[in-house]
């Protein structure tokens, strides 16, 4: 079973590269049972949206 720490690394990398099939499957299984990581994934997605609407942005 994937650890939460490793899951956060996969979620972060998932924003920067295409995860392999195996990585996606293990992450999905982990997310099904871990609410802390599901919340963190939403937070990471929010960070991306937030910076793209940063007031400095053109």
């Amino acid at each position: 079973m994937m650890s939460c720490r490793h899951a956060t690394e996969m979620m972060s990398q998932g924003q920067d590269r295409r995860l392999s099939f195996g990585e996606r499957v293990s992450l999905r299984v982990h997310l099904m049972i871990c609410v802390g990581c599901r919340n963190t994934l939403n937070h990471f997605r929010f960070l991306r949206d937030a910076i793209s609407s940063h007031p400095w942005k053109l």
Partner: protein
Amino acid sequence: MNPLNAEEVQSSLGQIRPRLLGFARLQLRSAAAAEDAVQDTLLAALEGASGFTGASSFQTWVFSILKNKIVDEIRRSSRTKADVDSESALDAAVSDLFDDRDHWAEIPSAWGDPHASLEQKRFWEVMDACLTNLPASPARAFMMREFLGLETTEICKELSISTTNCWVLLHRARIGLRECLDLRWFGGRAK
């Protein structure tokens, strides 16, 4: 379309100067170095402005000049002891979030409707404080990725680091920002 005239170039540069300065300060961690990088950028922008017809493509181009100046400056300057200390502090803070089996020591809560915060001026002050609190390297990698929209391969090349190191920096930046926003903005609201 006609090329931008001198007046349009001036007003366009005047308009983005504060944003250039904010970005440069965050990336370079020194008001004086940021001021220099922005001055150089504005001079280069004045010289090259004649090829542009639209203000928005011109401004994007100006940001890319600034990015190159910042990368040059980062390469020239070496990491200070303060940088190294602040990076170890973030490493330790990230490790503290997890128990000895690498599961959450304290489970992160949901943030409700975080997008509503984007409209609030105070949210951006907290966000900028959180970005400034990050150590320089993760903050740089994160802003190049999210603000300038560069791919990790480009960021690694610009900052002369390995791809793995780049992913580590981005992960720490995201975890660090998540914690900071949770603590200073969303904490208590979402519960």
